[in-house]
């Protein structure tokens, strides 16, 4: 337990709510001196919220933070930096048109009598700080002239120089690095660790967790799953912890699902034959049938969303063919897909789903109206009828249909987006992470809805990073890994097999 000799940061009982979401619930986190501590979890697990609280971007509702045995509450990123907590973000936020030296020392530039900048000293100090990271480059060149990896090193050097950092947080630092650059970064991380600096390493690349970290903390749905020595945790176990297998009230759904599987049509509705897109997803085969829910499982970035985008026509495949109703699809666009009876409830609700300033009613009828075209306007009275029908059916909690959607909670917004697609009456409904960031009750509602839609004869594709959810709702499960379809499970689904397929090894 907390040991002030060993631990430099101890966060206890951290709680944080945003409107509509309980982002963190009673989370404990401790960071030891001179360790590399990996922080993992799927989207919405609470990693970024936890880091934002530690770096002063957000304030916790409850809980305490101690740094070096002293109780602290960082008010802003600047304050956190003064305390010795520095962060290097995924996208390097430096100025590419300034020199490396200027970037490293801006705000701390050495000067002649406080008047003019002492360029010589500035460059010398910058060169020195880069050398400490074992990087020998010309610091008088513009930062933009160097690779992303070097830019990241400059960001790290800056973090170390300007604040005498004791704690360094690296938020997805490797996502835009090549393998070689990643190794270079790891070397620097190990060196800093040797100097007693504690490093929090956020990543979704599990092999990197194993390569560089000493301990790993797993978060899921805003709660702490646990902190483990990395070496003693098998890869399979880690994935199990990340994806979760929380058994809730919903298990009668399994029986329901088995029963409904009799309704699955023999003939396929949509047939993807060797469909792929360079830099997106490797060629895959997939057939979808009326009355069936096909789950897509896999980690973040494994190609789940890419499949959805191909099926819905956001992207055009550069190989293979998609056949629907015995006709190969030529016209790839959301508009054409909707006309064919395909709907996609996209992953990023805020950016791709809601139209914030429009009312709930207008959001619900949007896709239906788009399908009808510019001039066959749905009458106002009919709009209210449609909106009220779905508000009731999905028990959307809103004062009136005229409420702006941005004033609703995340779960209710998601229901409105679902209603938008149900109103368009599609034959194939693709749901990409429909339950992300919403409460358990609403999750259960949505899962039940998906099954009943299948029973009505719709074909559904259900994408989720929560494995138990996929298992519960799907008749058939496609497993994705590293942007390729790995395998497909149907009938009696074997949970362990799926996890092994996701992990890519039996270890």
């Amino acid at each position, binding site marked *: 337990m907390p040991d002030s000799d060993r631990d430099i940061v101890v966060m206890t009982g951290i709680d944080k709510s945003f409107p509509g979401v309980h982002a963190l619930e009673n989370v404990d986190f401790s960071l030891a001196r001179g360790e590399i501590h990996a922080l993992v979890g799927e989207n919405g697990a609470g990693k970024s919220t936890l880091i934002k609280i530690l770096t002063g971007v957000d304030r916790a509702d409850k809980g305490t933070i101690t740094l070096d045995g002293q109780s602290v509450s960082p008010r802003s990123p600047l304050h956190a930096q003064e305390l010795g907590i520095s962060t290097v973000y995924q996208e390097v936020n430096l100025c590419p048109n300034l020199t490396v030296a200027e970037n490293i020392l801006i705000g701390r530039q050495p000067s002649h009598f406080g008047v003019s900048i002492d360029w010589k000293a500035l460059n010398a100090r910058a060169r020195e700080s880069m050398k400490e990271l074992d990087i020998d480059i010309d610091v008088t060149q513009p930062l933009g002239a160097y690779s992303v990896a070097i830019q990241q090193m400059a960001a790290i050097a800056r973090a170390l120089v300007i604040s005498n950092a004791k704690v360094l947080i690296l938020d997805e630092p490797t996502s835009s690095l090549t393998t070689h650059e990643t190794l270079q970064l790891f070397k620097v991380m190990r060196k800093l660790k040797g100097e007693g600096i504690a490093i929090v390493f956020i990543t979704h690349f599990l092999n990197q967790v194993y390569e560089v970290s000493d301990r790993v903390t797993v978060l899921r749905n805003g709660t702490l799953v646990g902190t483990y020595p990395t070496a003693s945790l098998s890869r399979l176990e880690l994935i199990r912890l990340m994806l979760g297998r929380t058994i809730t009230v919903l298990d009668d759904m399994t029986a329901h699902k088995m029963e409904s599987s009799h309704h699955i049509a023999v003939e396929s509705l949509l047939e993807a034959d060797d469909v792929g897109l360079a830099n997106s997803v490797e060629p895959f085969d997939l057939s979808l049938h009326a009355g069936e829910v096909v789950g897509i499982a896999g980690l973040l970035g494994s190609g789940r969303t890419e499949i959805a985008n191909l099926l819905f026509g956001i992207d055009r495949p550069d190989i293979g063919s998609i056949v629907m109703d015995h006709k190969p699809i030529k016209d790839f666009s959301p508009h054409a*897909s909707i006309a064919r009876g395909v709907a996609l409830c996209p992953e990023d609700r805020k950016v791709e789903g*809601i*139209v*914030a*300033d429009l009312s709930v009613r207008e959001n619900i009828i*949007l896709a239906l109206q*788009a399908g009808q075209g510019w001039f066959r306007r749905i009458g106002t009275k009919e709009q209210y009828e449609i909106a009220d029908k779905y508000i009731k059916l999905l028990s959307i909690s809103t004062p009136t249909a005229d409420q702006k959607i941005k004033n609703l909670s995340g779960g209710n917004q998601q229901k409105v987006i679902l209603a938008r697609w149900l109103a368009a009456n599609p034959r194939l409904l693709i749901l990409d992470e429909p339950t992300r960031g919403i409460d358990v009750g609403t999750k259960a509602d949505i899962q039940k809805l998906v099954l009943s839609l299948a029973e009505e004869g719709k074909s559904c594709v259900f994408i989720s990073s929560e494995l138990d959810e996929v298992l519960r709702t799907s008749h058939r499960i496609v497993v994705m890994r590293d942007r390729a379809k790995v395998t497909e499970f149907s009938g009696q689904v074997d949970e362990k097999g799926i996890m092994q397929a996701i992990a890519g090894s039996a270890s």
Partner: protein
Amino acid sequence: MNVSFARTWSKLTESMLFLPIAALLMILAFDLFAIPGFFRLELKDGHLFGSVIDILRNGSPTVILAMGMTLVIATGGVDLSVGAVMAIASSVACIMINPTITGMALTDPGLFLKDPQYSWAPLWMVIVVPLIIASLCGMWNGMLVSYWRIQPMVATLVLMIAGRGIAQLVTNAIKIIIFNDTYAYLGNGWIILPFSLYIATAVFLTAWLLTRRTAIGLFVESVGINFRSSYYSGINERRIKLFAYTFCGFCAGIAGLIATSAIRTSDANQIGLYTELDAILAVVIGGTLMGTGGRFSLLGSAIGGLVIQATITSMLSFGVPASAITAVKAVVVIVVILLYSEQAQKFIRGVGSVTMRGEAAR
């Protein structure tokens, strides 16, 4: 002051029309007290004249421009070229009435001397062809913005600058004087009220029917608020933008015809000069958000156009020299910016809630 007042107040202030109407009423109230006889109307030959009528007449081109500009701004863009498109439309109209300066040999060169009313092209074509060309200009802007993904400000700047040059080219940089009385009716005619007011009303009604009786209005707003969500919902956002800019060009064409007709001259340098700024200001006064787009109100923009003209007419009647009018406009801009700031909006709404709280305390 009671709770029901507070409720009405909050409903009133949340309406997009609240500020434009309030502004118009304030200016008219000022006129009532400060300028004697401002509201006097005279009936001459069955036609009404007076300062209020002047506001309606002179404000018509701005109102017309504001209709197209509203849709463009609602999609999240802006059109700086409407003034230049007005000049193009007027040059085309004038050259069609009198093409002699192009060196074209008429069958009888003395036609214009014998009959000043003579028009080379039939008058319906003098109206229709410039409008088609103006719409094409708008479509060009729309192409640049929606298909080439050029920033609206930059894309429309091209035509703003090039447009006046094109207008000069059309008329060989000569100001053509129009003697045709039928054409002059557009900007100078009266049927009890000024004829241009009827045109403005017709454009307003057309714009309203086109957006609110079809799904176009909803799509324009949706694209302005979140074009990705709109795209995912199956809306062809490019086509919607193309439509908005084309319509804006069409409106500019109408305003251009009225403007040349009013001064009976094609003046490529002066016609529509700086009107794009008036049109944008009218839309902003009307409550449509500049830059972000989204929700729009055509009626608000129309009232916004009248607010600008009312200010100018009032100041002129009050004795402010015409050369200082731009300074007055600057004051309007500053007031609008302040009034539409979040703080001011909160304050205005707060008046109601304070009453409500006071009532509860009692």
